[in-house]
């Protein structure tokens, strides 16, 4: 046997091992997100700010949109929707306000992240204005009303009558030194 040949085999295999470990993070995770966003799976539809366009309002049906709020682990703010349910026609503009209160004694920055149920409704909710597009800084003891404006697409499948929108609020105070967190 030749030691050089063994060393060469081991070197090649080590490259495979390292490459496969990297593959999980560099390929699988982004590819999954991209595919889900492209196919509108699991609520991964990446909706940025939608432009307000004149559309016809579909008055033949009313969609019940429910709003939920939750705090990520270790996030001490008070955070809840002012009204929990809105009835809108597809194509009409709906508005909702969330209330946030920083009850701590330090200035903090928060970021809200949305998710939708049913997940496939995500791509039919167009947000024309949302607090989730920006970071939300609140000084110690300060409160804020956070508005969100949306239009339900007329193409929303007819069997969907209720959409739940959930926002989870994260403490990102320590993470935003010049760096911005992508809003969705």
């Amino acid at each position, binding site marked *: 046997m030749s030691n050089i040949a063994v060393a060469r085999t081991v070197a090649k295999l080590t490259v495979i091992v*390292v490459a496969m*470990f990297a593959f999980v993070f560099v390929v699988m995770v982004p590819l999954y997100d991209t595919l889900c966003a492209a196919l509108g799976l699991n609520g991964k539809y990446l909706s940025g700010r939608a432009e307000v366009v004149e559309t016809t309002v579909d008055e033949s049906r009313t969609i019940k949109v429910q709003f939920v709020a939750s705090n990520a682990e270790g996030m001490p703010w008070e955070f809840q929707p002012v009204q929990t349910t809105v009835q809108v026609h597809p194509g009409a503009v709906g508005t909702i306000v969330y209330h946030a209160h920083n009850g701590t004694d330090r200035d903090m920055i928060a970021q809200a992240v949305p998710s939708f149920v049913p997940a496939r409704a995500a791509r039919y909710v167009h947000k024309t204005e949302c607090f989730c597009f920006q970071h939300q800084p609140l000084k110690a003891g300060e409160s804020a009303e956070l508005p969100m404006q949306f239009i339900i697409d007329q193409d929303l499948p007819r069997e969907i009558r209720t959409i739940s929108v959930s926002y989870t609020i994260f403490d990102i105070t320590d993470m935003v030194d010049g760096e911005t967190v992508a809003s969705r």
Partner: protein
Amino acid sequence: MDAHAHHGPAKGLTRWLFTTNHKDIGTMYMWFSFAMFILGGAFAMIIRAELFQPGLQMVNPEFFNQMLTLHGLVMVFGAIMPAFVGLANYMIPMMIGAPDMALPRMNNWSFWILPFAFAMLVSTLFMEGGSPNFGWTFYAPLSTTYAPPSVTFFIFSIHIMGMSSIMGAINIIATVINMRAPGMTYMKMPMFVWTWLITAFLLVAVMPVLAGAVTMMLMDIHFGTSFFSAAGGGDPVLFQHVFWFFGHPEVYIVILPAFGVVSQIIPTFARKPLFGYDSMVYATASIAFLSFLVWAHHMFTVGMPIAGELFFMYATLLIAVPTGVKVFNWVTTMFRGSMTFETPMLFCIGFIILFTIGGFTGVMLAIAPADFQYHDSYFVVAHFHYVMVAGAVFSMTAAIYYWLPKWTGKMYDETLGKTQFWIAFIGFNLAFFPQHFLGLAGMPRRIPDYALQFTNFNMLSSIGAFIYGGAQVLLGFNVIRTIVAGKPVNDPKVWDGAQGLEWTLPTPAPYHTFTTPPEVK
């Protein structure tokens, strides 16, 4: 070769701690896996005792979940995988005419980290909050947001097991590629060596993926990332994709070496060469290749697009073709052979029958619309125990009886061996066949209590499980009895139909073998 090559083994405990001898390391792997097999079996006995009748008798549901999780983890990573790695360590150098493994020191290291990994895993039972309780598939968010604090120890032990497997696999590939005796071309290698070479490539490819999955869990739990948390923009379904991208090749990692063992033993007792050797090699390689394309058949119900359901369904059904080729070849090898039915042969025939049943239920589960009914039911439990236990464990048992005389120079007691086979065969089928019916009738898996109408089949299943557990105690007894009081064998061939380089060596195999490579015609 240095002067030590002519010495026997060192004396005392340090022989085992510092050994670089492939036979010593193989032996330790196999004893370790047997210990883990008994431990995982004890967990299974607790599960089956609780399920003997409806209601909660023996344990509380939290502890039941911990038993379920540890049973799966210990059996897959502690019993089956190390058993075949040990067998590979012992047999591959003797089968290809090499003096030892290519990387003997790494071999020592890859074995000795295993006991620490499992000591850590099992120690979580005594920690506050108990051991992992989220099933061996550790789906997020059960294993992240809702996991007990001991999950960090679980993650670390999975990392160590992964490293051990990767090092073992690299060693096997380096040995098979570089150390074959002159004249032993790839297509002259014994089937066991072939299946292990392919298995080792699977290990190298997917164990890092498992490491990636648990690393992401670790980061979600401790470092504020949200890979698997929908609240932070991640997705728990991503976990299932990453896990099964590892997990499906993993089941072939478990079963391919078993195929290799059966392909060695059947020709011996049918006294005919293996039918369709070339097609066996290509079938094994095809199974390994296809295993990367079918992972999502474990998750048909997560809400995939219909195109995805169809792709993974057809790709999975395709695997039945090379697997069918293998079963056909084994049966054809026996056809018109002068067969005898020693214990290893009985276990191999049992393997073929039961593995084929497991294969059929696998085809049933592969059909996406039908899987919506079977998903997460006891039918799945029955299916994977038919392929894992009757597949991997039966063939490992066959391997032990087949090569034990070569390892120890002593013959096991044929009557006791056959007794063990029949107890195991009856116990196994009594334990797992009724679970098919339970699943089809709607009993979910992973529950400590169940509806009354499932009582009778569960009782049968528990009785079968206790019988099967007893058969394993008899296996341990048989092996120890052989070592202590077996009838000596001196014939190098042991079995009159045996073929291959390992049977040209003296019996018992000396500590160092093939220090000068044999010539293969």
